[in-house]
Every structure is written in C-alpha cells, then in structure tokens.
C-alpha cells in the first residue's frame, strides 16, 4: 500500500523531471532569500542560472553543522518570520542546538512524508497509532503525530516515558502501530513480559523506530518480544524531521522521499560525489522547503545509496542504515571502523561506555587496541575470568567490525578524560606519516 501511489511509484524519468524543475526554483529561492548561502555561492562563483538540473547540484557549496552554528538562529531562514508557524529543535548534545523553522506548507509536506512511512508498514484509517517519541521541540513526536493524522489512524499522542501508562493504553485501546526509539521499543517489550504479557497478547502489528542507531540483532529481538514487524525511519531536524526516508515491507534499506529531498553520497575527505553503491557521507538538498531550505547539507552519516528495483514497487532511491559518522570514521587495514560500532558492542555486553581506541602502525600493519574500563560488577579475583572476558569481547568485535582488535580491560577512571569527556580515539599512525 502507498500513501501517494503516483509519486511513490513514479518512473525514474518522472522523478528526475520533478527534481530538475524543483531544484532550479529552489536554488533561486535560496539565493534571493538566504544571504548566508548567497555569500557561499558568490564565493564559489556559482550563479543560480548555473543550476539547470540536479546534475548541477554538485557545483553548489556544502552546508555543515558549523554553518548552522554560525548562522544561528535566523541566518538560514528562507522566508519572513511572519510566514513561519513553528520551530523545532535538536537536543543540542553536541554544541549549540539547531533550530529549524517551518511554514505551514513545510509542515504539511513533512507530515506527508511521515504518512508515507506509516502506510508503508501497513497503516490505514483502521489503525491505532501509539506515538511515544518525545513531543515538543524534538521532531520525533510531532512528525509521526502529524503523519498518523494524515493517514487517518486513531492517534495516541503518548510522548515518551511513563512506561506503565504506555502499556495500559497499548493494551486497553488496542494500539496496532508503535512509533518510538528502538531502545524504548525494546524496553516496552521487556516491561510487557515483566507484567506477564506474552508477545501475542497485544494487538500491535508494526513498529516505526528511529532517531538512534540500531542493529539487525536489535530488530529481531524487538520483533520477537512485541510480536510485530519492526521498521526503520530516518530524518534529521535540519531537513525537517523523521520521514526523510523510511523502510518498506522489504526491510532492506529506506526509501528516500526523492520528490522532496535530493540525496548524494560524497567522499567525506574530498567532497567529491561518489557513484551509486559506494559508501560515503550522505548529503541532502531540500527541494521544497520554504522556511529552512538547506542545500547540500552534510549529514555526517555514512551510508550507501541504491536504485535497485525494490519488491514493494516504490521507485525512490534507498539508503542503507547509517553505518557511523563521517567525522569519526577510521580506516584500519582498509576497513572502515566507527567508534559507534565499538560502543554498541560494549553496551550490548553490559560494559560502561568508557573506552579508548588506539590505532597504530606496527611493521607496516595497522593495529587496533581497545581499552575498556572494567566495573565492580565485572571484576573477578581470577585472572582467567578477566582474560576470558577480553577474548569474548574481541570475538564479538571481530564479527561486528570485520577486523580483529586487541581488547584490554583496565581499572575504572584510568581512561584519559579531557574536560570530563573521554578521549575516544588516539590515532598514532599520524605521528609516523
């Protein structure tokens, strides 16, 4: 089922035609209204008339998180504030928070994207959609709430937290679709089991989970504990919110809403556009946004795009689950490794997220050493226990990373911290180069 079948299954030629028309208008809109970006274009010597089709997007300058900080709060605004009806914001965990502006049209298009995601997992006006993403400044709750309304689902605007109440509403009001972060879905699953419910006791059929990285193992475990199909959704406040891309029944990559967002994969070091199928940094150009029209925004998410025909019938390009962040990607023995992958393993194995990664080159071969702080719970007076723990972590890491690290368990508080934050990666290879 599709929410907007004509566009979701349009031919490649039709999609391209729409994108080409939109980009010409959008670049003109941005150049005329956003001084910050006009200056960047002028500096690069690009004029709006140079952009005749999406092929010309590569001529445009990039926008980064740093630009958003510099231009905070109004510098990237594409229209008068009197035309804007809402602000959404990021959690601001890294540096200054991002504030994004929306006109009513921006919100409608965003909610349509979320509606496509809900219909893609089987949602109809007969469904009861429980949204337990946070409501408010965070885009998760508002986006899925709007999408659920558009589809005509009976919407339960639960917001996050208060798991006991979540479960009560879920069971009493027969929720069929669950929208939240994957970790919260896993937690709800555990709580249901603790309350004595079996997976088949609830009426849920599908879940739309995003806003944080999760693994295939986590998907299978959530599916089992809730008795549902679990689907991924992608988005970021800078481009609108969730719904930029969503998973379909194939559960193999997320369709990007290409009529609204043009996606590129670039080499994070050179900025060069990479061919389809290659792994690199995801860059988005919004084709319709009025209030916050970012062109060539570098997401820092590393992923792969594919236009392979999808069994669901949708024709929009698919992106893989982000594999990590471009700003902390390491290439070790030719393999891309992200600290986030290492952290995921540690947390899954009940270790604290206090670790340090040391990359070095010994005899022309890269070495990867991971130092992990041991906790009181994991400490044993037996040497063999600690060594067995190190070996077990090494084996799990090897499976996850594709290369074998050496794991060292170290006492608590021994990992160097600067300004209270642990220094995650030390790459000593740079000293040798």
């Amino acid at each position: 089922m599709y929410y907007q079948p004509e566009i979701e299954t349009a031919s490649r030629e039709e999609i391209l035609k729409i994108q080409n028309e939109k980009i010409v208008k959008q670049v003109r809109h941005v150049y005329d209204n956003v001084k910050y970006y006009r200056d960047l274009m002028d500096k690069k010597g690009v004029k709006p008339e140079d952009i005749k089709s999406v092929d010309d997007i590569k001529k445009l300058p990039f926008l980064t998180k740093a630009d958003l900080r510099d231009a905070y709060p109004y510098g990237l605004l594409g229209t008068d504030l009197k035309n804007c009806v809402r602000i959404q914001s990021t959690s601001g965990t890294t540096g200054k928070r991002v504030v994004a502006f929306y006109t009513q049209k921006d919100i409608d298009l965003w909610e349509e994207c979320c509606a496509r995601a809900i219909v893609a997992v089987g949602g109809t006006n007969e469904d009861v959609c429980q949204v337990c993403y946070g409501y408010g400044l965070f885009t998760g709750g508002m986006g899925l709430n709007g999408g659920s309304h558009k589809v005509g689902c009976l919407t339960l605007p639960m917001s996050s937290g208060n798991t006991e109440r979540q479960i009560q509403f879920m069971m009493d009001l027969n929720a069929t679709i669950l929208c939240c972060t994957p970790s919260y879905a896993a937690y709800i699953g555990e709580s249901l089991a603790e309350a004595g419910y079996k997976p088949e006791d609830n009426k849920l059929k599908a879940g739309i989970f995003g806003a944080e990285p999760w693994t295939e193992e986590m998907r299978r475990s959530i599916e089992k504990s809730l008795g549902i199909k679990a689907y991924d959704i992608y988005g970021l406040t800078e481009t609108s919110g969730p719904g930029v891309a969503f998973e379909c029944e194939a559960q193999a990559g997320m369709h990007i809403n290409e009529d609204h967002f043009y996606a590129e994969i670039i080499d994070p070091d050179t900025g060069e556009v990479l061919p389809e199928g290659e792994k690199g940094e995801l860059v988005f150009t919004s084709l319709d946004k009025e209030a916050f029209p970012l062109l060539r925004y570098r997401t820092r998410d590393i992923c792969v795009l594919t236009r392979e025909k999808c069994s669901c019938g949708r024709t929009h390009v698919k992106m893989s689950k982000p594999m990590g962040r471009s700003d902390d990607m390491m290439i070790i023995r030719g393999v891309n490794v992200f600290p986030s992958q290492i952290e995921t393993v540690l947390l899954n194995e009940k270790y604290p997220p206090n670790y340090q990664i040391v990359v070095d080159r010994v005899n022309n071969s890269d070495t990867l050493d991971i130092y992990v702080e041991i906790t009181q719970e994991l400490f044993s007076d037996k040497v063999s226990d600690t060594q067995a723990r190190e070996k077990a972590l090494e084996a799990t890491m090897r499976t996850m990373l594709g290369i074998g690290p050496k794991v060292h368990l170290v006492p608590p508080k021994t990992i160097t911290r600067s300004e209270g934050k642990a220094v995650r990666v030390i790459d000593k290879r740079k000293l040798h180069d």
Partner: protein
Amino acid sequence: MAVKQLSVFLENKSGKLIDAVKTLADNKINIRAMSIADTKDFGILRLIVSDAEKAKTALSDQVLCAVTDVIAVEMKDEAGALCGILDVLNKANINIEYMYAFTASTANGAYVVLRVDDNSVAESVLKKNGIATLNNDELQKM
C-alpha cells in the same frame, strides 16, 4: 569456615601498587599475606589482611577491589605438608584456581590460601580427611 581475601585490580604501571599499600598502612591495616597475578596489561593483587572489609572501604575510592571468600589451611612447616592437602583436593576432583602460602609465629607456623569454586565442598572434603580450615577470627588473632 572461609576467610576473607581482598582482591585488587591494578593497572600494570609503576606506582599503582605502592599507592594501594600505602593506603592500607595509613589505615593501620596489617598485611598477613599477599600474592600478585599479572598479565601484560593488568595485575590482580590478593591480600589477606587484618580487616578485609575495612581495607576495601579504605581503598574503594582509589582502586577497584572486592572481598572474596577463600580457604586458609594451617599446616606443619615441613616438607610434604602441602602435598597432603593438594592430594586430598585432587582426589576429590576439586580444581584450584590459585593458591599462595604464608608463615606466622604460631604452633604449626605455615598456612596455605586456596581459591576454589565451591568453598563448602572443599572444606567438607578437607574436614573428612582431618584437615582443619581457618576462620576469620583465628586469622585476626595471629
């Protein structure tokens, strides 16, 4: 009766051991016996002290430590004494994770500390064979 052993997880860096031992001295905790097991990266210091719980409290801000129950056996300070004890445990299929010995100015004079998986099983086997194990009180009175 098992006795309490203090186990300390240490980084293999110079100074770490001295710091820990100094804290014990500052808190008037007497070290009766000790052994260190170390690997390339870390070491585990095992101590029989006058008051294991007090020692743990004193050290807890500084190092990762735990109190573990181990068995302490008194033996004659003479050749072959240890052999008899190990033989008994071996025949009962009791695996020893680690052990260390110490002496004191008591009647028999020699003691061995044994770390096994199940203290009560090991103790009953020893007892059946006429080998007594120490308790914490006896240890503190030394």
